[in-house]
């Protein structure tokens, strides 16, 4: 049992999360396993607890009950092994793009020379070499988010947690960011958990989708993206051409509609 659970990037069992002294249950009896190198998307209606689950894995919040482990270690607090990217822009406005990327490494005690070299590499990875010395105030929303992504990657986390990372961006930038992110995940071979409300985004980025339902928040279904046959696509069009893509999107839309109807009836 121990050997197997150590290979699991995330292992959750009987997770319950309650707020306001137990009067509100955000998550009820949630269990999941995420393997190393897997890209998993959490989707579901508002209030289904998908963001709460991500925050529990990050260690920013702790479960009321249940066991939650990452690579065999119980999660008790946040740490650089689980890098998090938020919907709100978190690139620090008082640091240049490059200094932002260096900041995470600075916290880890990486020597200055190494920091600068690595920061340069990651600036290139997120296509921001030209903006190394720009402050976030002069960058677009998408660029600010790329700074935050590079800062997280530069810490070399084992897991990347993304909470609606592209939710604040306009459609075209979001699409560019999704493709960039897939490219980055392929290169860096990371385990990624992404919370999104965008079905197409979830299908495009994830190897598997975990669908949450509400009242109380729990997992409805874990859906592997079998139609991709283990591939990740550099460009979104390639995905649209796959047999089974349309059926997958239809299935998820139907599931989401069911949730909306149930919420309206409640």
């Amino acid at each position, binding site marked *: 049992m121990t050997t197997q659970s150590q290979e699991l990037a995330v292992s959750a069992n009987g997770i319950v999360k309650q707020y306001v002294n137990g009067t509100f249950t955000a998550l009820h009896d949630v269990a999941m396993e995420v393997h190393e190198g897997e890209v998993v998307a959490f989707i579901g209606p508002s209030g289904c607890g998908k963001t709460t689950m991500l925050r529990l894995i*990050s*260690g*920013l919040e702790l479960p009321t009950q249940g066991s939650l482990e990452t690579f065999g270690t119980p999660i008790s607090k*946040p*740490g*650089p092994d*689980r*890098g*998090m990217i*938020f919907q*709100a822009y*978190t690139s*620090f*406005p*008082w*640091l240049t793009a490059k200094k932002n990327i260096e*900041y*995470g490494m600075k*916290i*880890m005690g990486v020597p200055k020379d190494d920091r600068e070299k690595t920061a340069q590499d990651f600036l290139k990875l997120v296509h921001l070499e030209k903006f190394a010395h720009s*402050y*976030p*105030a*002069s960058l677009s929303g998408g660029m600010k988010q790329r700074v*935050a992504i590079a*800062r*997280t990657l530069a*810490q070399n986390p084992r897991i990347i*947690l993304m909470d609606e990372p592209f939710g604040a961006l306009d459609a075209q930038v979001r699409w560019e960011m999704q493709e960039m992110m897939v490219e980055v995940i392929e290169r860096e071979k990371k385990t990624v958990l992404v919370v999104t409300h965008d079905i197409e985004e979830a299908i495009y980025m994830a190897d598997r989708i975990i669908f949450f339902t509400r009242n109380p928040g729990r997992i409805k279904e874990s859906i592997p993206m079998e139609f991709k046959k283990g591939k990740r696509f550099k460009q979104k069009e390639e995905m649209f051409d796959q047999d089974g893509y349309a059926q997958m999107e239809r299935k998820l839309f139907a599931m989401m509609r069911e949730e909306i109807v149930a919420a309206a009836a409640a």
Partner: protein
Amino acid sequence: MIQGTKNSAIVTNRDAPALFARAADVQAHKERFFELLSPASGRQTVILGLLGAFIFFAVWEIGHYATPEEGRRFLPSVEQVVGELIFLFSEKGFFYDVLRSCIRIFGSFFAASAVAIPLGIMMGCFGKFKALINPTVSGWRYLPAASFIPLLLVWFGPSETAKMGLLFLGVLFFLIAMVLDNTEAVQREYTEAALTMGASRARIVLEVVVPAAMPAIIDSMRTMIAVGWTYLVIAEIVGASDGIGAVMMRAGRFLNVDTIMAGIFMIGVLGVLTDIFFRVVQRVLFPWNIKKKV
């Protein structure tokens, strides 16, 4: 319009609506003084600012000459006040008084800042620390600083400590509340992002919360030092022999309105200079905060 009709050979009825529309377009571009969502341009800001000052001094000057001869000494003219100010500086050693007042103000203000800023930031960062301090500190804000004058006099006599103490108390509790607000307004995700990066609490406070809150804190300081100037005159009534307030109080006893007004004018000038100082500090220390400008 007449020019236009002359130049085009024929103006038919069908052209009329087009002409009319064009005239309406021109009309729409005409600038209105009271226009919503339309900030003044750089040049307009300067011109309108000077115009406003000019109107103020003109009304004052007219007021002076409109006052009957025998009452004019109670409303001296602009040139009398400016002349008095020059006289005070050249003949009465007013520079020394201004310096004393500045030392009192800046000394007590920076002492208050040295207490309020760390305290406010700590309260803003740590909820339990806030719960411990805030109820007690909030109450103090409702006590008028001037009501401490008798107490300060009993404790310290008509000394420098009493005067500085009043300025200190007048600023401290408001500044704490403002710094607390500024700190709590820091986007929570900055702290969360730093936590997920594995930063220690000390690092987060010093390297994330402080830089994030500092521009707003400097703004709060700018607002509160203005309050400090208002307490200055009160403080210098407390048995002061020097300082702008003391000079004004002495002049009041002899109904020297021009001296009083020169003192008020001087405080105004110093206030504006302080304001400019804080704005420059803001720009120099936080070049990254450009979106807040203009």
